[in-house]
């Protein structure tokens, strides 16, 4: 086992992220290796230094982080209405259905309007049967075969 592998395992062992069974081989190596021993000692020394290190929380920060101040800083009044998910789903489906119905209605109206406009200028007549038939009026033609 290489020293780096052993030290990586020892580092994880210090953090309780490696079980004793997994570390057994590394511990065996540790007893006979001065490099790994000094790594282990340094890591423990560093931990004790970190635990001794007191970082004092500045009291002024609490005043700055007052809830009202934050609310004012954000500039948003937070009003929330809790709507259940199933109500939102039903609302979405109804909205989609309504939009389709509205679309069909508008399209039908437009088509009917267009047809009636067309029929005004159309010389023939539509006979509503199955299938619909168009009956053209008889056009009186002159001797040269031109329509009058």
């Amino acid at each position, binding site marked *: 086992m290489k020293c780096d592998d052993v030290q990586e395992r020892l*580092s994880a062992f210090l953090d309780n992220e490696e079980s004793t069974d997994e570390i057994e081989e590394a511990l065996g190596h540790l007893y006979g290796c001065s490099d790994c021993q000094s*790594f282990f000692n340094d890591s423990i*020394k560093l931990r004790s230094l970190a635990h001794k290190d007191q*970082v004092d929380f500045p009291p002024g920060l609490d005043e700055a982080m007052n809830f009202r101040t934050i*609310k004012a800083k954000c500039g948003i009044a937070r009003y929330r209405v809790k709507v259940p998910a199933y109500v939102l789903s039903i609302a979405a489906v109804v909205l989609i259905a309504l939009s389709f119905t509205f679309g069909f209605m508008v399209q039908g109206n437009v088509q009917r309007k267009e047809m009636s406009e067309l029929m005004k200028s159309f010389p023939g007549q539509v006979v509503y049967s199955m299938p619909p038939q168009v009956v053209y009026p008889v056009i009186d033609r002159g001797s040269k075969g031109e329509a009058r």
Partner: protein
Amino acid sequence: MPDFGNGKEFTEFYNQYKAGVYRFCCRILNRPEDANDVVQDVFIKLYEQGVRFNGESSVKVWLYKSARNKCLNVIRDRSKLTNLGSDDDKTIATDIVSSDYDDSAAMVTRLLDQLAVEYREVLILREWNDLNYEEIAAALETTVPAVKSRLFKARKKAGEIYRKLYGDE
């Protein structure tokens, strides 16, 4: 799911995590006034994000992730300023760091200051803030094996720096 609308839950989270987040920022940045600003920004952002969290652990990880990103931005801005600044500015900065390193706080400051940011952040999250590997991985947006490896390298590097600075005491 936390709801910060009425302020009670937000205050609870703030009181629970303020010291940890401040300690993290203070040790990463090595400058309390910058840490102050970052902590304020982080908690204001937390309030704005509000209901987007799934439980307390996600708030904790989010706080450290957000603090870390903001600290990295501060460090980036600082390095730009240092590059632009004159040699006098650099001398002043070094003097501040190297003065009065007899007490343990100054020892820590000096040690961490010489450690690369990628090692510093992982070491602080583990040793100063007591986060487990999963939480560290989530905060640093990496994997647990990567955290394991980076922590080992950070400890090794920190040990070397410690010896260089203070000998075998």
